[in-house]
């Protein structure tokens, strides 16, 4: 039933974007106590968007996306410590370093496909993790990189203890990244990349330099993940070794799968649901969170392979016109109950 053509259709900013914007503004005014959580949700959305570019739009499977988040975070932390406390320059530094890491690992990773590719991304990320662990004189190893200060944004807005500035700053960055990815995936470049995902052979016969395009996209996505990492370094004032860990790579993959790949809303929705759920359940018991996450994953794979946004899509498609509703109702219903079930423990 799923056709390629609608997937390639250009998408413009619409109602849903306005709703998301409204939600973010409402969070700022009404959920004052949760601003720290909301800020980390925003950072994770940036990170998930970057993964969506790689995984959803280009079909490159990766288990090591934290490599870019972490290198961006360390770059921004070290930049603030040794060069300049300017946050915007720090973001640029994070993006550049992560982009370079992406370019180098991309050359390695994109040579192969399938499971070998997954393993190579994993090996690259683990190498960086071990490097961060060994280079204690630079990264402070397990203790985490601390002791740097971040100057006020644009010289005016100082980071306050309530996290107001941090939230707005992260939100502004997210907005910029979101608009950029929106532009990117709808650009001729983005469309060719999606074409490559669907059929690389045909694209190369059409004269597209498949390898180069993939490498470009991989590098851009790495730079965006670096921005997310840099944001986290600036907002939290610490860079832990966790930012390079396998767990983070797995988590962001879960967020994206939860939301739905190949759609920017999927990354947004998945990150929000994952972060809020993990915060609520982990507050009770981290072990329960792990179990709940496991159940959630199995349920999503079983009943909503397109993720939550896929469910939403099918639902809106049904309300809009009398579509072939048989499969839609079946797949739509159990998902709703399953998410309810997750919240209760």
């Amino acid at each position, binding site marked *: 039933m799923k056709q390629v053509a609608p997937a390639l259709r250009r998408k413009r900013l619409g109602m849903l974007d306005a709703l998301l914007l409204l939600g973010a503004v409402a969070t700022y005014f009404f959920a004052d106590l949760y601003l720290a959580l909301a800020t980390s949700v925003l950072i994770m959305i940036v990170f998930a968007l970057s993964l969506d570019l790689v995984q959803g739009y280009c079909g490159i499977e990766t288990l090591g996306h934290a490599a870019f988040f972490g290198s961006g975070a360390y770059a921004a932390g070290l930049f603030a410590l040794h060069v300049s406390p300017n946050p915007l320059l720090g973001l640029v530094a994070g993006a550049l370093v992560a982009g370079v890491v992406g370019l180098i690992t991309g050359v*390695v990773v994109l040579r192969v496909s399938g499971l*070998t590719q997954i*393993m190579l991304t*994993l090996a690259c990320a683990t190498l960086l993790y*071990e490097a961060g662990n*060994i280079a204690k004189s630079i990264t402070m190893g397990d203790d985490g990189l601390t002791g740097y200060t971040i100057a006020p944004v644009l010289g005016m807005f100082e980071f306050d203890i309530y996290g107001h500035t941090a939230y707005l700053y992260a939100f502004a960055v997210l907005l910029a990244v979101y608009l950029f990815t929106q532009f990117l995936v709808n650009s001729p470049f983005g469309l060719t990349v999606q074409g490559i995902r669907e059929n690389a052979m045909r694209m190369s016969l059409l004269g597209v330099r498949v390898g180069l395009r993939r490498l470009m996209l991989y590098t851009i996505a790495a730079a965006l993940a670096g921005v997310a990492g840099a944001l986290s370094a600036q907002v939290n004032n610490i860079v832990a070794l966790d930012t390079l860990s396998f767990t983070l790579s797995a988590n962001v993959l879960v967020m994206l799968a939860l939301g739905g790949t190949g759609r920017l809303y999927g990354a947004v929705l998945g990150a929000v649901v994952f972060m809020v759920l993990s915060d609520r359940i982990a507050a009770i018991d981290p*072990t329960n969170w792990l179990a709940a996450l496991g159940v959630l994953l*199995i349920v999503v794979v079983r009943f909503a392979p397109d993720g939550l946004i896929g469910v939403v899509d099918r639902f809106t498609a049904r309300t809009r016109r009398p579509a072939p509703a048989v499969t839609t109702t079946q797949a739509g219903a159990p998902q709703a109950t399953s998410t309810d079930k997750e919240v209760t423990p």
Partner: protein
Amino acid sequence: MTQSLATFLSLSIDGVAYGMLLFLISVGLTVTLGVMRVVNLAHSAFAMIGGYFTLWAMQRAGLDFFVALLVGVIGTMVLGAVLERTLYRWVYTANGLGQLLMTIGLAFIICAIAKHLAGTELQTIPVPQGLRGTWDFGAFSVSVYRIFALVCSAVVAFGIWLGLERTPFGAKLRAAVDNPRMARCVGINVPVVFSITFAIGCGLSGLGGALSSQILPLEPYYGLKYLVLVLIVVAAGGLGSLRGSLYAGLLLGLIDTLGRYYVPALGAFMIYLAVLAILLIRPQGLVGRA
């Protein structure tokens, strides 16, 4: 001179024993990957289950080490078979990402359950009296248990090869892999063959987990902590190749042991560097299929 040679020799034996254990833990995954094309990220969790079953059989039921080992392996096999019939069937036709997510979800659940039942502390399975101590040959000494683990793994490796190449079941399995539809046509019950294979794979990893608890101690997050190790052995060997897993296990075990001793500054770095190098030179692994 002789002293350094002796050190090198005993380190090499340790490395080979470690490599054989790596092979034992990961060989089940090789089978699942090569045969059923399922990316089973919960595989090392099965190794942990085997270890815990063995430990419990010794502690709670007071069984002998070897009996407990048997109990652990059979317990893991039964659990593996049950899970295969229920959960894994769902993802046989799913795409790579779906398999990845479901199996890692399963690993999360197993970890959480293990933490509830066993607590968070590191545990090792006590070695029986007869396997303790070392054998000394002048300056050169080896741990008896390492030799025992090495022999066990070698026997298993030989057994798997024999089972696949020389038995009717092995022939059925290879037929079912190469062409499931045709295999069905000649009367092979493909789902049953797959279930048995999966169970055997789980049992092998359980055995590996139980035997290697001296090197990789049991803990609730075992299934996630050593997952990367298992995956790189399989990937470096070439997906689905038993011989490749053996070579990769041995090579990586040696590199890791020797590297940690001679270049301590690099620590765990060496093994990943080696994997990167192997996969760069041979993207399909040491004995990869084209």
